[in-house]
């Protein structure tokens, strides 16, 4: 055998041509639309990054992040991986990274936790070096950063969100997101649902924080707690015993810990009655506007008021939505099964002001310009990503509500318009006393707010770092 074998020739050609193609590819991408994340940028060469080895690590990450044909390879690797599991059970369990940990593991679409051995402080673990923190606030999956260094960076990114809505760019900046790359996801029957692992410490902490609010705010302000369960609660999982903990039990647990004057909205029963309807997206972790409507109705019933029937709203449709769980899993079953967003146009006259720091922007409750972007959920409350915002209606009943919310509140708030004169909206990740000029206690007093609604996703309630972000606005 005197000749180079076919595989030898192919090997040499493939590695050399790929290497050459990457050198000749001058227009390296900065953002991955597919994975909805910022790609690693070419690192700057300085003496300190050179000596610490960071330069080389970052360069390798930059090299593979901007590799030619990357999107195709990401998708192909997903398909090959799937093909490797022949007798597939039809469901897929995906574990994503814990939130808020120092080491984010690796790239945005990292689907598993890294090996315990390499999870520590090792500096040589090749590709598992943690993601660049500069992606903070501008791309999905970094809510952890937003929460941790709340204040300024949250506000900045909120600002960008506002600008984007004006220019209607292709890449809406998603500055809020509780998916934080964390948790357990089950892809079943063409939809992804988030599972729930009861965390007693986190749960207790939620009630502690709300009780603290009660204490600081005083008793003349009515407080309500509304928790949006994860979709995992409403699909049939009998076959997969023990895969998700009961969220109903968790909410009961909370009820026993909350101050008696804080009333819990029974969202669970309200949604459970309608569990066969389209109350959660299939490719996104959020509930649909319909799910939010049922929660709103439960809230109104708790207060002894009559909810506005859904038929009173004009319904509009946005097709082709592939949301956060698709981005996270790139699952083919989800890709084939995109969501339709139904929005309900408000009929109440309002003025919606979003404050980014001191700057005020008028916005729409439902901003259809976001429907052109990738993350179409941003149509609700025009992304809801301001430092704080206020909706003033022509219902002059003197009722002033503060909604402390995460992105689940964005679908809920629009239904509240017919019931309040003023609705203040605060997302703990973007609020900061420095840009708002006051803490929440002063905020409530100065604005004459007489009701507070805490509207959060179960996973945020279950996540201590998130609730710490809510707590700190008291100070």
């Amino acid at each position, binding site marked *: *055998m*005197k000749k*180079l*074998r*076919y*595989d*030898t020739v*192919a*090997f*040499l050609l*493939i*590695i*050399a041509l*790929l*290497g050459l193609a990457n050198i000749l590819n001058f227009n390296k991408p900065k953002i991955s639309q597919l994975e909805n994340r910022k790609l690693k940028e070419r690192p700057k060469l300085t003496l300190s990054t050179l*000596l610490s*080895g960071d330069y080389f690590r970052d*360069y*390798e990450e930059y090299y*593979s992040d901007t590799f030619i044909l*990357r999107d195709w*390879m990401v*998708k*192909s*690797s*997903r398909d*090959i*991986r799937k093909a*490797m*599991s*022949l*007798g*597939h*059970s039809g469901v*897929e*369990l995906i*574990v994503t990274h814990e939130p808020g940990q120092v080491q984010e593991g*690796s790239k945005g*679409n990292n*689907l*598993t936790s*890294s*090996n*315990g*051995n*390499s*999870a520590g402080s*090792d500096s*040589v*673990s*090749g*590709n*598992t070096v943690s993601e660049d923190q500069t992606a903070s606030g501008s791309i999905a999956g970094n809510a952890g950063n937003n929460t941790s260094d709340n204040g300024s960076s949250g506000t900045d990114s909120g600002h960008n969100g506002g600008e984007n809505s004006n220019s209607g760019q292709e890449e809406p900046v998603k500055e809020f997101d509780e998916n934080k790359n964390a948790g357990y996801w089950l892809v079943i029957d063409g939809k992804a649902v988030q599972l729930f*692992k009861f965390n007693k410490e986190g749960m207790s902490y939620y009630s502690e924080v709300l009780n603290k609010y009660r204490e600081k705010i005083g008793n003349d302000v009515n407080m309500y707690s509304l928790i949006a369960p994860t979709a995992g609660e409403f699909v049939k*999982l009998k*076959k*997969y*015993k*023990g*895969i998700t903990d009961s969220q109903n039990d968790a909410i009961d647990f909370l009820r026993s810990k909350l101050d008696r004057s804080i009333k819990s909205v029974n969202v669970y029963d309200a949604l459970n009655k309608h569990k066969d309807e389209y109350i959660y997206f299939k490719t996104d972790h959020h509930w649909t506007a319909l799910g939010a409507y049922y929660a709103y109705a439960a809230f109104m019933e708790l207060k002894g008021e009559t909810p506005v029937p859904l038929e009173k709203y004009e319904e509009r449709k946005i097709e082709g939505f592939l949301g956060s769980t698709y981005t996270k899993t790139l699952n083919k079953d989800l890709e084939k099964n995109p969501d339709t967003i139904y929005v309900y146009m408000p009929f109440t006259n309002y003025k919606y002001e979003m404050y980014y720091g001191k700057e005020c922007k008028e916005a729409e409750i439902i901003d259809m310009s976001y429907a052109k972007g990738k993350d179409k959920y941003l149509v609700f409350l025009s992304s809801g990503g301001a430092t704080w915002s206020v909706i003033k209606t022509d219902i002059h009943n003197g009722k002033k509500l503060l909604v402390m919310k995460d992105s689940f509140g964005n679908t809920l708030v629009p239904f509240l318009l017919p019931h309040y004169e003023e609705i203040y909206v605060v997302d703990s990740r973007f609020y900061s006393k420095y840009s708002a000029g006051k803490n929440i206690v002063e905020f409530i007093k100065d604005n004459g707010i007489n009701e507070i609604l805490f509207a959060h996703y179960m996973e945020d309630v279950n996540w201590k770092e998130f609730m710490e972000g809510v707590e700190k606005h008291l100070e």
Partner: protein
Amino acid sequence: MVFSSLFFLCVFLPATLILYFIVKNRNVRNWILILASVFFYAWGEPVWVTVLLFSTFLDYYCALLAEKNRGQRRGKAAVAFAVAANLLILGFFKYWGFVAENINALLGTSIRASEVNMPIGISFYTFQLISYVVDVYRGESKAQKSPFKLLLYISLFPQLVAGPIVRYEDIAWEIDNRTITVKEFNYGVNRFIIGLGKKVIIANTAGEIAGNFLNTDYSRLPVLGAWFGITMFALQIYFDFSGYSDMAIGLGKMFGFTYKENFNYPYISKSATEFWRRWHISLGTFFRDYVYIPLGGNRKHHTRNLLLVWFLTGLWHGASWNFILWGIYFFVLIFIEKKGLLNLLNKLPALISRIYLLLAVLVGWVFFYHTDLGQAFRFLGIMFGINAASWSNGEVYIHFTNNAAFFVIAVVASTPFAKKVYESIRKRLRENLKGMYLLDGVLKSAVNIAILVVSIIFLVGQSYNPFLYFRF
């Protein structure tokens, strides 16, 4: 830099190959390899590359002295000095933090542990240097007259960061006399691709699955989950480590160097004794030749010698008690085997020996994986039903059914089954030229190309790609 990275594969390797093969002069080629290797190392360790250079040049002189004064006091002193210096450097970078931590815990002192990260591959090249100096003193090798050629031996990038531990005498002749035939180059590429596939396709996937069980809250872990998890870890570490060795051997061949085999289907062993003859062979022979036999082997203080070797083997894998325990655990197994268990096993059906060995190895991996001993015992308990949340659960069911096919493929790939089938087909086709061409020329090439392409796709698309040997 590691082999299983895109930058290595598409930039470093093609550039080095091109530079290497456009020149014909062996001296220039050696220089290209030295520079490439130092660059390769400095890419990961821009500062501690100095330690590599320092140790190499120090041992270069020590070996010259040892050779000149062989059998005399000065020669002995030179060897002793070189060995001590190497061990001190290794001790400082790898073990000082561990020692300080234990002294502090024991005596309540507060000795500051060094905060330096351990230079990658230091355990491998330190052992190569020690073996070199000792071999020269013993007269088993000639001292290298050129410090740069010694550096070539030590720093050669295929074996630098994850072994195997290459002995100087194995490649001494090739430094000055190697020729690369097309056949060998073909073999090198073939071997590299197989190693890459083992690492990227099998080991990374197994590791990802293992993480679902080993990296979770053990209060929820069911019995079957623990077994599935540790089995996947066993597959991960075998395919990862032997994949690296394959890549090293393949790369070595591409540049004309021949390394000895480092793995030989360890999981088909029938005893712990046999397992260690098949697992990380270059480490086992190092301890045999430089610790066990010099101390008297099985002629005097046999038990002590065994204990010491296994203690050191454990410690070599990382500065942490769990690795020491892992080493001692194998001492106990091998000791019992020597005291009669082996005789017993030989009388029983082979299946029983194999089950015994696999169980023993899996329990061993529990200690290897968990640097926290409390967690290790907790996990071990769950495996045997102590404090387990349940027998099985939905998660185990899903992961198992989704990965059953992969599991079977990986298990079969860890045995010589495919190799035997291939060889028996070849035997039958011996006279059939066309059949041989189809098998070797077409089918094998197609398989290798497919492995390469899938590996590259996985390197880009799958983000789980750990380097497991940063503790070694």
